[in-house]
């Protein structure tokens, strides 16, 4: 089982301007696992992702298995409507060649788009003119383009409608099952956590709990995490 470990985090802490954002968080992630990270606003969830991606400095141990490829779908991705970048060119930022890409890359791109339910006609559209749902799918597709071992999703359905949200999770789940991709997911929606996650990590600056959703997501732990008197989603019975 040891060889299945792809991420080990021991006592990781992050400080920004002498303010502690995360303190002594420890967990492990195994290949193929879906780990949900939950916590109230300002709990340090996004900062944890930034530390995992090497974007902020931290103390403590953080070891990715050697050679692991990471895909990332950020919480915020804003692009001006007038920004002259087509969807095709956005993907070409990940291609070895921007100016004269080879045909194989474009064919691969069209296949990847079909997996998130988009047709190749979207490639010629300006990125800034896409709807929220289309943008999410493009970001997922871009993150999955080079078939990463791990995907980090930061609240991937923020700002899109319920129908599109369901579609996003279905796509995520399909990709995870078909490719065995490990998924780390930040979510506010406990329904999603029950439905898709193997394990859940609860943080509120410090680590509150870590384990299987059914075992640890009880009223006591949720009260510790979010404070008393909160409203929680009813858990969906079965994990699909």
């Amino acid at each position, binding site marked *: 089982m040891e060889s299945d470990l792809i991420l080990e985090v021991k006592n990781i802490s992050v400080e920004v301007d002498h303010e502690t954002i995360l303190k002594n968080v420890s967990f492990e992630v195994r290949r193929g696992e879906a780990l949900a990270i939950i916590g109230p606003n300002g709990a340090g969830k996004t900062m944890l992702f930034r530390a995992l991606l090497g974007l902020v400095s931290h103390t403590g141990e953080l070891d990715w298995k050697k050679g692991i490829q990471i895909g*990332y779908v950020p919480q915020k991705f804003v692009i001006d409507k007038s920004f002259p970048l087509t969807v095709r*060119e956005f993907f070409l930022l990940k291609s070895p060649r*921007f100016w004269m890409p080879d045909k194989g890359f474009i064919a691969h791109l069209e296949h990847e788009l079909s997996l998130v339910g988009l047709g190749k006609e979207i490639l010629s559209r300006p990125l*800034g003119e896409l709807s929220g749902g289309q943008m999410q799918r493009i970001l997922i597709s871009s993150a999955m383009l080079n078939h990463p071992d791990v995907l980090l999703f930061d609240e991937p359905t923020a700002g899109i409608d319920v129908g599109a949200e369901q579609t996003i999770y279905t796509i995520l789940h399909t990709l995870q099952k078909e490719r065995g991709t490990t998924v780390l997911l930040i979510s506010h929606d406990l329904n999603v956590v029950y439905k898709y996650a193997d394990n859940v990590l609860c943080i509120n600056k410090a680590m509150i709990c870590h384990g299987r959703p059914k075992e640890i997501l009880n009223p006591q732990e949720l009260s510790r995490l979010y404070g008393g008197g909160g409203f929680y989603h009813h858990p969906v019975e079965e994990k699909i």
Partner: protein
Amino acid sequence: MITFDIQTLIIALVIGAASGAVGAFIILRRMALVGDALSHVALPGIALALAYHFDPFWGVVAFCLAAAVVVWALEEKTRLYSDALIGLLFTFNLAIGVLTIPDTEILESLFGAFTPLTSPEFFFISIAGAAAIALIFLYAKHFLFLIVSPELASIKAPRKSRLHGLLLMVLFAFIVALGIKLVGTLLMGALTIIPATISKNISRSMSGYIVMSAVLGALISLAGVFAAGMLHFLPGPTIIILGIALFGISLFFTRKFQ
């Protein structure tokens, strides 16, 4: 009949194209006025060169490159927005320049007068300008990624991504330094902005935008040099006025957004 020497035209072509190419990224990075700050840093360089009797061109290049590193480092290290940093650098260097440059030289320094270049200067500007254009196209993908999403561009290689940011700033400063001889310190920043803003008005794709910006930069500079020669104007202001006129025309062809 007015004659134009081939040297002037080659410099206008190379500097115009390089300004247009680098300006394409600078506009998208919302650093349009950094060119003004960088070009004004040239003034103390000119003053130093005049005081110590060496060619002001090299003083300009050295000061602009140093300023690029300073702007980049300050942006990395401080929480100040780049426009505040630019406000500081711009006025500080203008003040030093006006105090230290002799009155007879100040007009040429500010507005550019195309005095004949020495042979080493001509070859240096032409070759270095062409090399800068090549580097911009070669690294376009990295510069662009940094602009579209610094976060995504930095994943697992934040150091490399920061170096791409530095390279863009250094290329920008270098092109500004090369162009000061053509349009002067006061107007060089505008030569990097105008072609890109026209191109952005009418482009739908990034590749079209960058290429068109470089081509427009070259055409505006060449046309400006021709017009200045015919009307006995300074080339710098002529180039800029011509560019602004073209920008006005481009407004009629601005693409509509959904």
